[in-house]
């Protein structure tokens, strides 16, 4: 049963917004689209900050907006991170963080102020006036403030855009853990496809105020009708389970539908479900694979199930397993290689992938 | 003098209507042009002291006119009493049975009067209360206005039950709607005029001073509720 329902039909100023989304009440939904396509507007409607006439919004059966009803923003249990931070200028960092915490009742389930302070590296800033923070510091305080307010849904409007990679690498896994433990839905606006790949369960693709399409990230990224698979940054996401860990070599074996991958690092414990992101440009194709001659540790038997010519490159869709029944992979090779290797749809081929290319950039999880 | 002059005359506010009457007459007679500035006597004196361009000062009392002369702001020899004010008692509707009898009775409501420090009518009103021996009794019930005009407003608006005002304010009211306070109840309210330095060389100004003492003028002044019984004639 879809638990977060968003139906919007109307306009803000003279910007038309037309959205119809049914989302589960947990997991991360990335909202993706060009500048000015209505991502912020969508979040504002969900938060009740914008009141579109013809709208229906429900969360877990509770009606937030319908033709008869409009729950005002402060009655909605949301955590909102504004695109521009929007901190309270008259309060210190500590008071900003505490503002929501104080008002969310006695529930002690959420994170504590200390926890957030440490996570976001705000220890030295707590007594600072927010006017004297750097851009990234503001963004961290804003995110911390939202997390502390113990929300039933998190609405994040590019919360990490002003942060360096190291900070992101600290924060994303935390958000990931949090949403898995507290099990609340997160709508996450971002322009960073790698954030989507690492962190999102579902993807909503918007353009010009409408939802172009939405669905599980894995399907969306490999769907050849969508721009993702066409782009140079195209990648596939595979879900697998850790079946073996070689601590000495620093390699883990992950079993996916139709094959096994060797990856560097230890993404979890044996039995854990993990996600593999494989960039299409990282997959080479070869008729043979000899692990003693080349540093490529993964050579998986696959069947070519599709190929799209894109200018001078081929976007090849592969299915793991000789019979092509396994998980799908995207590979991107030159037309030159496609021809020279004599490849064709339905042919069998090895997909060659370096273990190192499979490591998560954060070095923490996949 | 055939040439028409413009005279600036500072006039105590209580004399406003009478001054307008006099002015109309004088302008008609002489062809001169009069500009009246009305104000409280204290204000007018301060203005004169600090350079106001008035030719003649019609004070509401004797002292300020004398002071004007003493400080060489005007010509002392021209000082004259142009009117003697009469005090009247009004109520906000209640009939005045027998003169000041209402003052003897236990106080009811507020008694309005002009500020004794600022306005001679106020001082006179206080004299009356003292003369009647009821000042102490009325003390807590006194409300003072800036001027007799304000005292009258207190009564008319119904906020004070009784008030001392100038007879000149009542000249169009029926004789039985107020009690004219006997002259001997208070010091006479002499209003003196004096020719100021600015008007020293003005024939029109000297003319007006002369006119002020004329019987034609007195008729007009009397009509506006002023007396003449103690007139110190200037020489």
């Amino acid at each position, binding site marked *: 049963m879809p638990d977060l329902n968003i139906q919007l039909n109307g306009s803000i100023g003279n910007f038309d917004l037309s959205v119809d989304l049914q989302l589960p009440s947990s997991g991360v939904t990335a909202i993706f689209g060009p500048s000015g396509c209505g991502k912020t507007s969508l979040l504002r409607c969900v938060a009740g900050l914008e009141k579109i006439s013809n709208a229906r919004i429900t969360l877990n059966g509770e009606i937030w907006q319908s033709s008869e009803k409009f729950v*005002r923003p402060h009655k909605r249990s949301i955590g909102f991170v504004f695109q521009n931070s929007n901190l309270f200028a008259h309060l210190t960092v500590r008071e900003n963080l505490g503002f929501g915490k104080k008002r*969310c009742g006695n529930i002690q389930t959420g994170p504590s102020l200390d926890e957030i302070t440490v996570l976001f590296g705000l220890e030295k800033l707590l007594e600072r006036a927010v*006017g004297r923070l750097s851009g990234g510091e503001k963004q961290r305080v804003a995110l911390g403030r939202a997390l502390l307010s113990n929300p039933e849904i998190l609405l994040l409007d590019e919360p990490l855009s002003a942060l360096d990679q190291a900070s992101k690498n600290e924060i994303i896994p935390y958000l990931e853990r949090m949403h898995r433990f507290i099990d609340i839905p997160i709508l996450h606006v971002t322009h960073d496809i790698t954030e989507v790949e690492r962190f999102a369960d579902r993807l909503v693709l918007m353009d010009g105020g409408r939802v172009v399409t939405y669905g599980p990230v894995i399907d969306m990224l490999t769907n050849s009708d969508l721009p993702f698979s066409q782009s140079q940054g195209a990648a596939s996401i595979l879900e697998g389970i850790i079946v073996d860990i070689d601590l000495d070599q620093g390699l883990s074996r992950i079993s996916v539908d139709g094959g096994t991958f060797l990856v560097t690092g230890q993404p979890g414990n044996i039995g854990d479900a993990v996600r593999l992101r494989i960039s299409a440009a990282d997959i080479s194709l070869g008729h043979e694979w000899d692990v003693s001659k080349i540093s490529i540790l993964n050579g998986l038997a696959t069947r070519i199930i599709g190929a799209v010519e894109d200018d001078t490159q081929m976007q090849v869709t592969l299915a793991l397993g000789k019979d092509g029944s396994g998980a799908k992979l995207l590979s991107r090779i030159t037309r030159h290689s496609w021809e020279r290797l004599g490849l064709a749809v339905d042919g069998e081929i090895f997909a060659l992938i370096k273990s190192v290319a499979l490591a998560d950039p954060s070095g923490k999880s996949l | 003098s055939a040439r028409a002059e413009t005279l600036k005359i500072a006039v105590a506010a209580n004399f406003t209507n009478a001054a307008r009457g006099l002015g109309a007459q004088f302008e008609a007679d002489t062809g001169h042009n009069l500009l009246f500035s009305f104000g409280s006597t204290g*204000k007018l004196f*301060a203005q004169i002291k600090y350079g106001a361009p008035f030719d003649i000062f019609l004070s509401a009392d004797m002292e300020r006119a004398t002071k004007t002369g003493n400080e060489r702001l005007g010509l002392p020899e021209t000082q004259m009493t142009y009117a003697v004010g009469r005090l009247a008692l009004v109520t906000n509707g209640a009939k005045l049975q027998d003169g000041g009898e209402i003052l003897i009775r236990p106080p009811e409501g507020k008694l309005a009067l002009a500020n004794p420090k600022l306005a001679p009518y106020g001082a006179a009103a206080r004299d009356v209360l003292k003369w009647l021996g009821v000042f102490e009794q009325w003390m807590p019930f006194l409300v003072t206005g800036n001027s007799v005009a304000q005292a009258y407003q207190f009564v008319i608006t119904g906020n004070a039950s009784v008030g001392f005002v100038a007879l000149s304010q009542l000249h169009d009211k029926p004789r039985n709607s107020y009690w004219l306070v006997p002259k001997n109840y208070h010091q006479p309210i002499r209003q003196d005029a004096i020719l100021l330095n600015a008007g020293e060389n003005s024939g029109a100004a000297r003319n007006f001073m002369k006119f002020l003492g004329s019987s034609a003028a007195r008729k007009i002044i009397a009509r506006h509720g002023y007396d003449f019984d103690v007139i110190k004639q200037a020489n």
Partner: protein
Amino acid sequence: MLEIVFLTLKLAFVSTVILLIFGTPLAYWLARSPVWWREIIGAIVTLPLVLPATVIGFYLLVFLAPNSPAGEVLGNLFGHPLPFHFEGLVLGSVIYSLPFVVQPIRIAFEAMGELPLEAAATLRSSPLNAFFTVALPLARSGLITGGVLGFAHTIGEFGVVLMIGGSIPGETRVLSIAIYEAVENLEWSKAHIMAGGMLGFSFAVILLMMLLNKTMDRSRNA
């Protein structure tokens, strides 16, 4: 004399407090209400200014007279007619100083914008709570300026106060009336002393408030 000073301060403080209590929500409403007649109310609030103080006082006197409808109601409420009583002075001062209090506060609320209130709403702060915990602190400059102007104007105003108060010692005779009297009565050295004391005291109060405002200022460059 002490009595007069005390009464003056009492009037100024009471009026300022009342002005802030009523003026602040009014300013908030003027700054944010979407109704079309908002500016009409704004103009009406400013209107008392264009009449001379004594004239305002006179109309108030008529309006509040014991035998007028409003006077009767208010008289019953307070147990006595308002004119010639302290409460009347307060009423007159409040009406006459209202625009000076409302307008600076309104500007501060307008300058604040909607964003802080939106942030507050997303953090479960009700409109009322946000008004107190977000809007008021952010409009602090406007509140202090409004308060200072209201305070100063109440101290200095004497036209309305004289008219509606009747200069009753201990009840409605305030310092401004005393200074006015001294000037009119040519007691200039007395006037100088009173005016000097009043200026000195007020200067101290105003400066204090303004310095307080600055030291509380966290939001510069925010």
